[in-house]
């Protein structure tokens, strides 16, 4: 973390992201209305009463954007955590044991990867029914292979390091070696991937909501607002622009963060510092 602070882009993105998170967390406090409260008229322009105007049903866009942030961020975090939990386990197992286990797990992951991801998410959502929790699961499943591959990759390098053999020579069991010796040393690329997957999860959620399969109305999510808003691009351009900007900014921050994390964790880069 110390290194992150040295990087201006990283600091800026961290700050902006913190603000976004804060806004989302404090939504009930800072928003003037309920997110599903219908105001006087639809598609009003920005005004003092309605910072970004009102949406197609006459709800305050500002309020909805802030609440949508809650949903989108929650879906992002939870689905990434789900993906991480499964991905890391699979990656650890296949990388550590190798052989047939590895082949089987890898082919399964290839299968998931070869499956068009939106279609996969769509299928999962359709089976489970559209709601926010199922969206998390669906997006989580879609993102499993990335984590699994990255984990497997670093396990393969870490497991050849001598300290792993040292641990085994001292009598440590497989589980202990995997969790105590190998995993901690695979964390940096995983951490980098966390922010990148978080970013892409926000995008997939938006795409799912865009296809009408994400969060259900009247609960707002950035994706669904983006989708509704673009119908009024000529009448109320701020609607879609704001929603798009929210997604874009969040994803940008996360990507920037991931980028500088990558730089920091890159052994070649650190050696010079």
């Amino acid at each position, binding site marked *: 973390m110390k290194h992150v602070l040295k990087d201006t882009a990283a600091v800026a993105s961290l700050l902006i992201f913190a603000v976004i998170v804060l806004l989302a967390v404090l939504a009930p406090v800072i928003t003037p209305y309920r997110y599903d409260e219908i105001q006087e008229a639809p598609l009003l322009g920005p005004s003092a009463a309605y910072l970004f105007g009102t949406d197609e049903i006459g709800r305050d866009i500002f309020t909805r954007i802030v609440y949508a942030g809650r949903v989108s961020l929650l879906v992002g975090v939870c689905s990434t955590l789900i993906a991480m939990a499964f991905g890391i386990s699979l990656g650890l197992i296949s990388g550590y044991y190798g052989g047939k286990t590895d082949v089987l797990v890898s*082919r399964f992951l290839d*299968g998931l990867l*070869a499956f068009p991801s939106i279609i996969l998410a769509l*299928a999962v959502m359709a089976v489970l029914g559209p709601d926010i929790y199922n969206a998390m699961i669906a997006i989580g499943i879609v993102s499993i292979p990335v984590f699994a591959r990255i984990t497997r990759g670093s396990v393969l390098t870490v497991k050849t390091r001598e300290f792993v053999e040292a641990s085994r020579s001292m009598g440590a069991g497989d589980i202990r070696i995997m969790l105590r010796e190998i995993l901690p040393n695979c964390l940096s690329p995983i951490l980098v991937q966390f922010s990148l997957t978080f970013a892409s999860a926000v995008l997939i959620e*938006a*795409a799912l909501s865009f296809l009408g399969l994400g969060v259900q109305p009247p609960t707002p999510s950035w994706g669904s607002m*983006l989708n509704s808003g673009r119908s009024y*691009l000529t009448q109320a351009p701020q609607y879609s622009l704001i929603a*798009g900007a929210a997604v874009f900014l969040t994803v940008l921050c996360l990507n920037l963060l991931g980028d500088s994390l990558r730089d920091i964790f890159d052994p*070649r880069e650190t050696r010079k510092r």
Partner: protein
Amino acid sequence: MLQLILKKVAELLTVLLFVSLIVFFTFRLLPGDPAQMRLGLNPTPEALAALKAEMGLDKPLVVQYVDWIGHVLTGNLGKSALDDKSVVSLLAAKIPNTFELAIFGTAVALLLAVPAGVLASVYKHSWTDRLLRTVSLFGFSIPAYWLAVLLMLLLAYKFQLLPAGGFVPWSEDPWLHVKSLALPVVTVGIVNAAQVFRFLRAGMLEVIGQDYIRTARAKGISEFYVIFKHVARNALPGLITVIALNFSLLLSGMVVTEQIFAWPGLGWLMIQSILARDYDVVQGAVLVSALIIVIINLLGDLLNAALDPRIKYNG
């Protein structure tokens, strides 16, 4: 090489087996079925049962799966529940369209990303690099469908330069075809350029840091030569892998793009068939698209293997 291919084919079949299992059983779990969809709102239970029996939907799932796989192995992917068209003919009609988008999209992406990637890695940490990285991050972070809508609004509505989606077959009007291709291709290209750029830059930097590049420089050959011979040749496999990977992501990520641009490709067909519970088409489409994806990645691997003198396969 032959053995490598055999091994890869075996891998490919395993992957497809997984895909077939996933696609078959997930979609059977969806509420609704093709018989219901075909009969509309208010079918009598008898009519429904009869149609289900006719379509073989009354058999146990495992039997249905085995039946289906049996057909698939003989190259018969079944037929659409909507209009009885063979799935193969449907796919044959749609895949070229998707491929067209993906190929030109990739071409646009490469055109943008390769020069940028080379520049950024050669002038690492310079302002050029920083600028390019920032721009690429923007491309990386923008939701593709939103970009699509913005582009369309700008180019199709404001300036009326290009058609707003729609598909004109080449055989009908080549020029219009190209015009209708432009917007989706640019959308797809921009988003992918960002990714290719980032991979390429990282790959080039990795190679530039290698000992043998130092050796090359120690010979006093020009920097241009070092970059375009020694670095490029070693960064190429990475680039090929990324292109293959991206191409396959493109194929499967085309769902939203095709819907928006009304581009009759594989993604749209899949969505349409899912909504209509057209099992055979969904299954066939997913399986074939997985096959294409796996094959493209395989081709990438083989190409890399052929390019890499270290890998010598006897066989």
